[in-house]
Every structure is written in structure tokens, then in C-alpha cells.
């Protein structure tokens, strides 16, 4: 019994740190509708800046320690403010997901900056003077600092609550979160509100990071380690709801603490299972309310079938792709194979993001199902390639259909997060079901005689299947089915009043996108000759998002161009410099600022104007 109480207290301490970071993210999302990937970077910067600041301040005095922590938090607030003003402010009118792309660019840049400034060593920051001891609780020593953390959570909650309930700023925040027209009607400078909320949110993240110093090491992996968990907290709590974030942080903290006792092997996936369960029962999270419709004014372009000029370009490109192996380099063929695979992957994601208006953060899950279907078939039944390549889209199509059933009643970011949870659950199956999947060591030797990855035969096969698959998707988007999907996205009420079965069309979109992603995954497995859990991990999903967004959501050739640009950039940058993450991040920011409609979106806009 005593042990359980101590375990619960430990969970409470973790909950407080989670809450600090999550509350900031929730506020930012509620007001600006930005899915801020860089929030984890703010958290990490808070920790690193606290280390540097505390090294300058007198040691051993509690007052200086706390001042240092606060100073670091404020410094992060300043960084967040600057980021909002110079970057995000310029792109609020771009398609909603474009800000996600921008914040991801920031993540990449900060990762390399942190390595350059603070070096690669993990740092164990100074502990809070006067709070280094433990006290006996029920006969067990318990760190006093954790008790302090347990109280900081509710204190911050109360402060935010008062701020949101009883100040004009708070009223605006609430209005912006739930009733956008009011804000406009009040004649408030929205830009100022956004900046203020960003400053507050990033300060909270910085504080969360700085307060972690006594508990864990400061590393350059902190950002991505926390961000997924914080997303879970924010979504479980209900987007934009600060009390919800606290409740969810408590829940997740306890799930962690007791999950470790009961099922220590599945700690990672447990919180995603909890999130999936919560979302299925309460589609807007524990305390969330339906959000006011997002910022208006998003430019939605009309999709057009290829005109004569685009057709010409397409034929030239196809000829080039066919003649490419003549260039001689093995590497070019390998790269082109990979590019073809990612074109289909991006096209399948684009079907969901674009015409269907369904944001998926877990598309790699379906890609991975295809890859593992092939690998398992080869490993256990020595299946020939034809069987593998039939199985991959079939399995992933089924997975997509199953997923479509699960999230039929969700939309927007909630859908995105449930798809993330779905992919994470698949990922952990690949990672931890060692007997079947080989765990993180993956499955090796996925090859078919005569069709080796990097070989010419395989290249042409991949080119045929991937470009063919992309054309089929394209065709479907321009067929009545695709128009039905877009109708459901553009004006759901109108679509229903016309008798359009929106939910069923979307469900089919999940299945079809799943099949296409699975085909891409299956080909990828053969191309690489091996499969690993990383194929289903979050970074792969983010890669897919990057490709689609780089190309442009509201164009048909966007995913193709986006995938080519991404594969090319990654190859050139990773071979040219160790700072490739920073270079990629800077390029992403450049694209975001210069072409807020994506590369293809920008080009077609320009030619139309001309």
C-alpha cells in the first residue's frame, strides 16, 4: 500500500512537468490553431539556457537558483516571441498545416544549434540548493524537490485559470479559442493577441524545461522525447483547455507510474492506447469543446486536370526517368527508386490531406504495414515478389479501412492525433513483438532473385507501379468519387443536404490511401532489402507531411514535386554536411516564407497570373 502511494506521488511530480509544457501548447493551439512542433524545442532550450544561466550565477543560494530558472523561462519566452513575429506571423494565411511545416523547420535548426552551442555531451544540471534532500514518507525516502514540483503544477494552473477567467487578455483567449467572430467584432488586433499567447506559451515550455534540471539530464534529444507525450496530454485534455491539460497530465503521469509496475515493457505505447480510448469515447478530449472554425481566408485552389503544358513536362520527365540508368551511376538508380516510392507515399497521403481534408500524422503506420507484410511473407513463406507486392497493398488497405472505422467521427487535429496513436501502436508492435518482427533489429534479407533493390529491373518495376499508382489516385480524385470527397471537405452540411455519403467516401479514402501507402512500403522493403520499426515511426510520417506540404496541398502534382525535392535535398544535404538538419530546416523556412502555397502551388499561381 505504501509503495502504491509513493508511486502515485511520483506520478504527480511527472504530471506537473508535463502540465507546464502542455498548458503552453494548448493555449497556443487554441488561439492560433498552430500545431507547434517547436514546443519541444522551447522546452529543451529552457533546460539548456537554465544550465548556462546557473553557471553564471552564484552557486548554492536557493534564491539565485530560482531566479536562474525563471530567467531561462523568460529568455525562452523572448525567443518564442521573436519566432512568432518574424516567422509565423507571415504565414497565418497559408493553409493550416503550413505552420506545422514551419515549426518543424525550427525543430531541425534548434537541434543543430544546441549541438553547436552546448556540445554533444549530456549535461547533468545543478540541483536546487536547499532541496537536495529527501524526506521519509511512509517509511520511504522521497525527494523534496518532487514535492515542490507537485505543488508547482496546481499553482500554475490556478494562475492561468485566473488569467483566463478574470482578465481582458483571458477573455480574448477564450473568445479566440471558441468563438472567433467575437474577437473580430471586438476590434482587437489579432496579431498582438497571437504574439502574446505565443510568448506566454513558450515561457511555460521554457519553465517546464528549466524545472526538469534537478530530475533528469539535459540532452539534445529532449525536444522530440517530450513533444509526442505533450501532444497526447493536450489532446486527451481537450485542445485549448488548460484545466483539461492538467487533468490529462495527471492521468498520463499516473498511467506512467503504474504502467511501470504492471506492464513495464509497454510503457511507450500505453499512453497512446489511453489517448485512443479517450478519443473514441470523447471525441473532443476530456474537457474540450468543439473548436470554432479555424481562421478563414484560406485560399483553396480549384483542382485541374493536367493542361497541355503540364502534359508536355510530364512526358519529358517520364522519358528522363526511363533513360536515367544510362547516366551510369548505381547511386542515381537507387535514389530514383527511392524517389518513386516516396512519390506514391506522398500521393497517398495527399489524397487524405488534400481532397479528403483528413489530416493524418500517422501515415507511416500504413507504409510500415505494407513493408512488414512483404518482409514477413518473404521470411516465413519465402513468398515470391508477386505475392509480396499483392499482399502489401491488401494488408495496408485493410489497416486503413480499420483505422477509418475508428475515427469516422473525428476531424481536424483530433483525427491527426488519433492517427498518430494508431501508428504508434503499430510501431510498438513492430518494436516489441520480437518473435514475429525481430524487434528493432528488423527483418533482413528481404530480396527476390532477379529483382534486387538498386537493380534495373526493380527500378523499372517500381517506376511502373509507383507512377501508375499515383496516376490511379489522380484519376480517382478527378472522378466523381474525388469530387464527392472534396464536397464533404468544402461544405459538409451542403454535401449531406445533397445526399452525399461523406463518411463512407472518407472511409474509402482511408482504405485506398492505405493500399497505396502499403504498396509504397512493400516496394521500399524490397528496395532496402530489410525492414525496421523506423519505417512506421513518427519521423517517417513527418517526412510524408513535409513532402506533401513542400509540393503544395491543393495541387495534384504537389506530392510528386514535393517527394522529388525532399529526396533530392536529403541526399545532397546528408552527404554534404553534418549540419544537414539545420540546412534542411533553413530551406524549409525559406520555402514556407517564399512559397506559402507550396512549390507547385506557387508555380501554377504565377503562370495563371501571367
Amino acid at each position, binding site marked *: 500500500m505504501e509503495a502504491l502511494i509513493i508511486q502515485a506521488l511520483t506520478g504527480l511530480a511527472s504530471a506537473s512537468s508535463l502540465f507546464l509544457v502542455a498548458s503552453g501548447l494548448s493555449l497556443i493551439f487554441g488561439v492560433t490553431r498552430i500545431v507547434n512542433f517547436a514546443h519541444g524545442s522551447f522546452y529543451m532550450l529552457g533546460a539548456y539556457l537554465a544550465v548556462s544561466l546557473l553557471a553564471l550565477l552564484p552557486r548554492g543560494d536557493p534564491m539565485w537558483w530560482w531566479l536562474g530558472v525563471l530567467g531561462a523561462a523568460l529568455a525562452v519566452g523572448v525567443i518564442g516571441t521573436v519566432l512568432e513575429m518574424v516567422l509565423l506571423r507571415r504565414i497565418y494565411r497559408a493553409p493550416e498545416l503550413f505552420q506545422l511545416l514551419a515549426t518543424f523547420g525550427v525543430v531541425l535548426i534548434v537541434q543543430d544549434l544546441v549541438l553547436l552551442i552546448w556540445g554533444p555531451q549530456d549535461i547533468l544540471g545543478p540541483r536546487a540548493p536547499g532541496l537536495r534532500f529527501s524526506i521519509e514518507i511512509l517509511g520511504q525516502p522521497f525527494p523534496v524537490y518532487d514535492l515542490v514540483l507537485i505543488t508547482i503544477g496546481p499553482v500554475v494552473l490556478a494562475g492561468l485559470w485566473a488569467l483566463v477567467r478574470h482578465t481582458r487578455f483571458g477573455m480574448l483567449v477564450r473568445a479566440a479559442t471558441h468563438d472567433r467572430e467575437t474577437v473580430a467584432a471586438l476590434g482587437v488586433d489579432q496579431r498582438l493577441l497571437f504574439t502574446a499567447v505565443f510568448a506566454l506559451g513558450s515561457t511555460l515550455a521554457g519553465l517546464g524545461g528549466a524545472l526538469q534540471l534537478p530530475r533528469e539530464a539535459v540532452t539534445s534529444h529532449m525536444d522530440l522525447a517530450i513533444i509526442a507525450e505533450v501532444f497526447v496530454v493536450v489532446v486527451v485534455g481537450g485542445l485549448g483547455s488548460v484545466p483539461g491539460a492538467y487533468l490529462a497530465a495527471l492521468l498520463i503521469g499516473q498511467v506512467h507510474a503504474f504502467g511501470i509496475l504492471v506492464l513495464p515493457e509497454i510503457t511507450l505505447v500505453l499512453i497512446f492506447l489511453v489517448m485512443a480510448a479517450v478519443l473514441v469515447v470523447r471525441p473532443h478530449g476530456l474537457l474540450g469543446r468543439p473548436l470554432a472554425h479555424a481562421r478563414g481566408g484560406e485560399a*483553396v*485552389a*480549384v*483542382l485541374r*486536370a493536367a493542361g497541355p503544358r503540364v502534359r508536355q513536362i510530364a512526358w519529358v520527365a517520364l522519358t528522363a526517368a526511363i533513360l536515367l540508368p544510362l547516366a551510369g551511376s548505381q547511386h542515381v538508380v537507387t535514389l530514383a527508386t527511392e524517389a518513386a516510392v516516396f512519390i506514391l507515399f506522398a500521393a497517398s497521403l495527399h489524397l487524405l490531406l488534400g481532397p479528403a481534408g483528413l489530416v493524418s500524422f500517422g501515415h507511416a503506420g500504413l507504409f510500415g504495414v505494407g513493408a512488414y507484410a512483404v518482409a514477413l511473407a518473404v521470411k516465413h513463406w519465402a513468398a515470391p515478389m508477386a505475392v509480396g507486392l499483392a499482399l502489401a497493398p491488401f494488408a495496408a488497405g485493410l489497416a486503413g479501412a480499420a483505422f477509418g472505422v475508428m475515427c469516422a467521427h473525428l476531424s481536424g487535429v483530433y483525427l491527426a492525433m488519433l492517427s498518430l496513436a494508431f501508428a504508434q501502436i503499430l510501431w510498438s508492435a513492430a518494436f516489441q513483438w520480437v518473435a514475429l518482427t525481430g524487434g528493432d533489429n528488423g527483418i533482413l534479407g528481404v530480396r527476390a532473385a532477379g529483382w534486387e533493390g538498386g537493380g534495373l529491373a526493380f527500378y523499372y518495376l517500381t517506376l511502373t507501379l509507383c507512377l501508375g499508382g499515383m496516376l490511379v489516385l489522380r*484519376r*480517382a480524385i*478527378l*472522378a*466523381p*468519387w*474525388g*469530387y*464527392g470527397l*472534396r*464536397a464533404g*471537405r*468544402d*461544405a459538409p*452540411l*451542403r*454535401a*449531406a*443536404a*445533397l*445526399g*452525399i*455519403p461523406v463518411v463512407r*467516401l472518407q472511409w474509402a479514402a482511408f482504405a485506398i490511401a492505405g493500399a497505396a501507402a502499403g504498396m509504397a512500403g512493400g516496394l521500399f522493403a524490397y528496395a532496402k532489402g530489410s525492414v525496421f520499426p523506423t519505417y512506421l515511426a513518427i519521423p517517417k510520417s513527418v517526412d510524408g507531411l513535409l513532402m506533401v506540404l513542400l509540393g503544395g496541398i*491543393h495541387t495534384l502534382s504537389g506530392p510528386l514535386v514535393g517527394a522529388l525535392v525532399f529526396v533530392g535535398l536529403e541526399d545532397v544535404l546528408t552527404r554534404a554536411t553534418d549540419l544537414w538538419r539545420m540546412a534542411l530546416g533553413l530551406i524549409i523556412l525559406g520555402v514556407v516564407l517564399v512559397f506559402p502555397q507550396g512549390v507547385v502551388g506557387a508555380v501554377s499561381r504565377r503562370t495563371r497570373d501571367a
Partner: protein
Amino acid sequence: MLEATDLVKTFGGVRAVDGVSLRVMAGEVVALIGPNGAGKTTLFNLLTGQLMPDRGRLAIAGVDTTGWSPRRLARHRVGRGFQIAQAFASMTVRENLQTALVARDRGLWRLWRRLASTAVADADSLLAAVELADQADRPAGDLAYGDLKRLELALALSNRPRLLLLDEPTAGTAPAERRTLMTVAVTLARRDHVAVLFTEHDMDVVFAFADRVLVLDAGKLIAEGSPASVRANPAVRRAYLGSEA
């Protein structure tokens, strides 16, 4: 054509619609009016399947449609117009109608045949009917609001409705535009013998086009009759003046 019996809808203890019964005959144009907060929108949402009534029955063309979803009502040939025009912004005007026509014919599950070559003639004749033919290739997202309302009307007419439910069909348009818009709607409806029920703020429009007027106040029907009789009804005057005072 439309027969509602004793509809009740309560929101948190407030009876927004309180025992309303009404009928609209085929070929008849009926206006539903009432001061702000009278429950018009709620009643409309009950009739269009957007909301479920707590009590009461709904029958359309002799079929009990109580609790049907908007999609099922659409299949039953009920056309609907929204107060804030709803069209598919990422499509051209013609594509909007093509999509609606294909949906009517249950052709949405085609994944290969291009939409571009589908139902063009029907779409264009509907566009001509609402006087939008010259805008056919413009993106619906770029239309002026008056034109968007026309498109909305064309969409509502696309499933050859026997009952047309229009929520403030002229809201947001200039006074001159209102008459043309209503003329188009009513002419088409009379031609095809469609039953029309519409809500409207502009009394000139109501009295010019309605065969019959229903007056709603505080969730109840307080008057019903020809435009002239309703105009003269003291209860109606009281409701309007009272709400404005």
C-alpha cells in the same frame, strides 16, 4: 407534401419549438416568419433533419420521415438552402452542380470516369435557369455573394425536389437582388409544382411571393393565413413590435 405534427424541441429547459404543426401543399409557396429568437432556425433544422425533435412527427410525400438524416431526406427529394450560402469552394460553378447531379444519381462511387464529362448538359441547364451560365467556369470560392446565393439555389434544385426548404434565401444580398433571386426560385418551383417553405426577414419579399404565411413566436405558431390577413393580425403586430421595443 410536408406535414409536421406537434414538433417539440427543448434546449436546456427552454422550449425553442413548442408544439408546432404545419402543412405545405405541392405547388404552394409558404413563408415562415417571426421575430428574432422565435425559433425559426430551430424549427427549420428540425424539418431538414439537422436536429432530432424531442416529440412530434414529420411526414413528407406521405412517408414518415421523423428522425431521418439530411442525407436520407435528400434521397427523398427534399431540397434545402442554407442561410449562409454553402457551396464547394474548390470547384468551379459547373463542377458544383455536376457533383450534386452525380450524387443524385448515386454515381459517386465511380473512381475512374472523369467528372468533367459527366452531367454537363443538366448542369448547364440548371445554371441557365438561375442565370449563372456566364459564371460556369469560375471557382465557386471567387463568386460574388449574390451569385453564390444563386448557385446555392441551383444546388438545392439539383435533386428535382418535391419539397424545397429555403432558410433566408435572400439574406446578405442587396434589395434589388432579392427580388430577382426569389422570382427565379418561385418561378421554377411553380413550374415543377414544388412545395416551398422559406423563412425571410424582408417583409416585402414575403408579401410579394408567399401564397401563405406562418408566424412563429416563442416557439409557437401564433398566426397563419394569406399575406394580407397576417399583415392585419394584431397578435402578429404585437409580437413584432413587442420584440422590437
